[in-house]
């Protein structure tokens, strides 16, 4: 009943007092009978699982989206979502992994391949025929919001290319871009670099690879462990040097901070150094602000901005730092979404059998956006949530760092590129 990382999470099942608050707030249970609820698949089912059992007794845990509403509302601190992630890993270990999940778990490999000919890759991925095929053959939902590969080169290319323009400074910050920024949305990285430099930081982009989260959420723990230890090896020297490592992907930073160490039993010194040096970029900016170090030379921006804090913030447990900072920008009327989840939940909403559940879960958010009137943009920190948000609302969505960069006059929100001074 305890998987290998029992010590960090397992004992928390003992805290459950069966009160079912988690089930009452679970956005997935609310829309489908296929998921009997966090308490049932979490601390309750866990008492019926063991190592070396004849076979995995349960399967409905696979419908947990990992949004962590349960962790947040639990009055006793049960790490329900983590228990579920482990249970899923055990099912994977037993049943093997479908090709679909193998693919969804390998963002980085896909990105690298696509960059050989990104336009062709987009064309072949984004036409209706191939989407139907992908659904039939692999179970990737045909309507799910697959991202488009960057056709103007990767973030890495840009950073290399503009090396001579980059700010040199005694104050340095390390940037973890993650796969989405690298291959799909290099402009998010550009905005981040612009904001950091504007505040006087020299940006270091060290060699790095996928954080491993897509693998973790599909239960491929062994593979994820390799990714994680690569990242530790590549980046711990910066942590040791006392530099902060900031990331724009809330899921990547979460993985470096907590998910990977906890799920993979990576409690070694290097993992810990990386963990303690890693920040979500807005968590970090808020610290700068509270220390009086953040530049607030914002331009006034007249806009109503529905903002949805992604589920990963729930796991970061740092509140809503992007909201705190966006509210500093004059003219921006930030409307905070209280929707529980957009429904995509990483790779969850891409799976054919879960696509509709994801859309039903997201309805709360889509309705919220609709209620805000005719807005031009929405904002959300996580890339997959933004894609889902765009898919569910037909409105463009931006990373808050893009908004902030724009407020500094460094970024063009429509063209999604840094302003060349």
């Amino acid at each position, binding site marked *: *009943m*305890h998987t290998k990382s029992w010590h960090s999470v397992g004992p928390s099942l*003992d805290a459950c007092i069966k009160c079912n608050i988690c089930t009452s707030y679970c956005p997935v249970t609310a829309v489908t009978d296929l998921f009997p609820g966090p308490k049932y698949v979490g601390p*309750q089912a866990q*008492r019926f699982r*063991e190592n070396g059992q004849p*076979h*995995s*007794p349960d399967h409905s845990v696979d419908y947990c989206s990992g949004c962590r509403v349960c962790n947040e509302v639990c009055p*006793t601190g049960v790490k329900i979502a983590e228990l579920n992630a482990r249970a899923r890993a055990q099912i994977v270990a037993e049943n093997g992994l479908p090709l679909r999940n193998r693919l969804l778990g390998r963002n980085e490999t896909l990105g690298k391949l696509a960059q050989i000919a990104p336009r062709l890759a987009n064309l072949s991925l984004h036409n209706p025929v191939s989407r139907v095929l992908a659904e039939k053959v692999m179970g990737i939902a045909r309507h799910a919001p697959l991202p488009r590969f960057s056709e103007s080169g990767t973030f890495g290319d840009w950073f290399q290319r503009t090396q001579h323009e980059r700010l040199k400074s005694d104050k340095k910050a390390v940037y973890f871009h993650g796969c989405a920024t690298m291959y799909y949305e290099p402009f998010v990285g550009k905005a981040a670099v612009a904001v950091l430099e504007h505040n006087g930081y020299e940006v270091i982009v060290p060699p790095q690879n996928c954080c491993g989260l897509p693998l973790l959420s599909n239960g491929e723990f062994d593979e994820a462990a390799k990714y994680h230890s690569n990242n530790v090896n590549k980046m711990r020297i910066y942590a040791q040097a006392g530099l902060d490592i900031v990331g724009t992907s809330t899921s990547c930073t979460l993985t470096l901070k907590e998910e990977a160490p906890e799920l993979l039993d990576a409690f070694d010194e290097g993992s810990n150094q990386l963990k303690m040096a890693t920040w979500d970029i807005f968590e970090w900016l808020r610290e700068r602000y509270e220390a009086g170090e953040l530049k607030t030379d914002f331009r006034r921006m007249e806009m109503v901005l529905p903002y949805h804090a992604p589920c990963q913030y729930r796991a970061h447990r740092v509140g809503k730092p992007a909201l705190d900072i966006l509210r500093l920008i004059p003219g921006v009327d930030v409307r905070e979404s209280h929707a529980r989840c957009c429904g995509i939940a990483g790779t969850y909403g891409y799976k054919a059998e879960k696509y509709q559940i994801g859309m039903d879960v997201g309805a709360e958010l889509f309705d919220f956006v609709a209620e805000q009137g005719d807005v031009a943009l929405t904002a959300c920190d996580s890339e997959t949530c933004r894609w889902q948000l765009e898919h569910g609302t037909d409105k463009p969505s931006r990373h808050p760092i893009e908004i902030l960069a724009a407020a500094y006059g460094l970024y063009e929100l429509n063209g999604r590129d840094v302003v060349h001074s």
Partner: protein
Amino acid sequence: MTKHLDTNILVIGGGATGTAVAWDASLRGFKVVLVERRDLTQGTTGRFHGLLHSGGRYAVKDPHGARECIQENRILRRTHAHCIEDTGGFFVVTPEDEGDYPDRFKAACDEIGIPCAEIPVREALRREPLLNPRLSRVFEVPDGSADSFLAAHATADAARRAGAQILTYHEVTNLIVDNQRVVGAQVYNVATGETFAIHAAMTVNAAGAWTGKIAAMAGIEVLILPSKGTMIAVNHRVVNTVINRCKLPADGDILVPSHTVAVIGTTSVEVADPEPLRIETWEVEKMLAEGNKLVPGLSQMRILRAWAGVRPLFQETYTGGGRDVTRKLALLDHEAREGVAGFLTITGGKWTTFRLMAEAAVDKVCEKLEVKRPCRTADTPVPGAEQGHYWLGHRLHEVEEQHLQSELICECELVTRAMLENAVKRNPTLTLDDLRRDVRLGKGPCQGGFCTYRAVGILHEMAQAGAYRPDADAWDAAFLQSPGKNREPLSVNRDRNTDYSLPNTAPPSPNLLLRDFLQERWKGIAPILWGKQLRQERLDELIYLSLMNADHLPDAELTSPSSDFYHYDATPQEDANA
């Protein structure tokens, strides 16, 4: 006319031994009546850690007993397969266990024929990651984890099918002695208040810890040393293998995975009476301290419950108690010993050897009745054994496969509504505690917090529908605990003539059922209430006081036959010797 029953053999006691005597005797063609003062397994059978011994524990000290264990272990794995989880067992050497005991242990196992293999500590830790990493040696033996509730039901079921009558809630008030011969017993039906006589050619006293009291009714002194053993259950499995300390048996040296929990036991304390059994603070602390030696951090885990059972240790003359008294079975021929014919006592022994004890007793019955009928139990699986051993996940698996989530009444232990209803029909039910023994109702973390109310509501609905009554045809214990095999409520034959075994009384007051079970659960949690379990208890209080106002319901004056047993003071006291 005064009611009476005539039978060949009257068995007193509805524990493992008594049910096995009934089974064995009815298989040999005797007409059998078994009486039990409360529910099956309410005595020691339902209050131990559930260890199916390989014999390893007794190999050094009591080779004869150990030999009996391994022999019976092999038999029960066939005859009662579905009542056993094949966990295997480890004997582990901790840093505190010094000396040559491990080598003597291994040699003794080899000598007796107990399969025993030393395995690398690393391998043991791989299989049981929470074990103390400082173990120096580990031996693997064929221990197992037994469901003694299900086993007794299965045995009783087998006996019933072979013609025996099983009368629960029938208390022996006196033995009928005629001219130095026990010819039966006066019996009081505690459910109906009826009293009647059972006449029998032979009476077998299998009353466990109450053996001495029964024998005294025939003017016979049987010196039983009730030795209390206290156990505590940890909220989750902790280990999936039985863990024994590799040393001479002592307090707190066994950790048994039992369904969803792990049980650490036991103490050994001489007590005057089999009931009530107070759990002392030092016993709890001792179990936790010893548990920590097997699984570091065990004492910090959530403890669900504590309970105590009595070993019915027999000694010819008193020389000392506890672990030094033999654990061998004791068959007392009272005709030979005291000149009282028609009366045998079978006692001592261990749960693992219950079948053997019955065999010995019924052999003696045959001898007394001068018939030759060989024992058949060793080769006759009880109904349900064909399912094979159970595994921890079976309930969850069945609930998942058949989508029974919405049927769950006891969510902690995955008890469905139909399991509950059918258990009522399968077995006389006067308290929810009876259902706890039958289907594990209320045995999980919330200790009845949610399911007490639900079960009371359901039993009340059954009563309103006229469906609250046991039915002899429904007495199928094979699937008692299976969510998947209890999809539908059993239909009850309402026109059946009343069987003595099935109390034809009004169903218990729902308010009494509720109060009784809340107090019954309280008795077992009060000794271990701190930390997370204390918070759970407070939530349970909120439910039954703030929300339900259950302390202001009608029927406050009613009691059940078990109310007194639930009501002794189980709260922690200052240790007298502290």
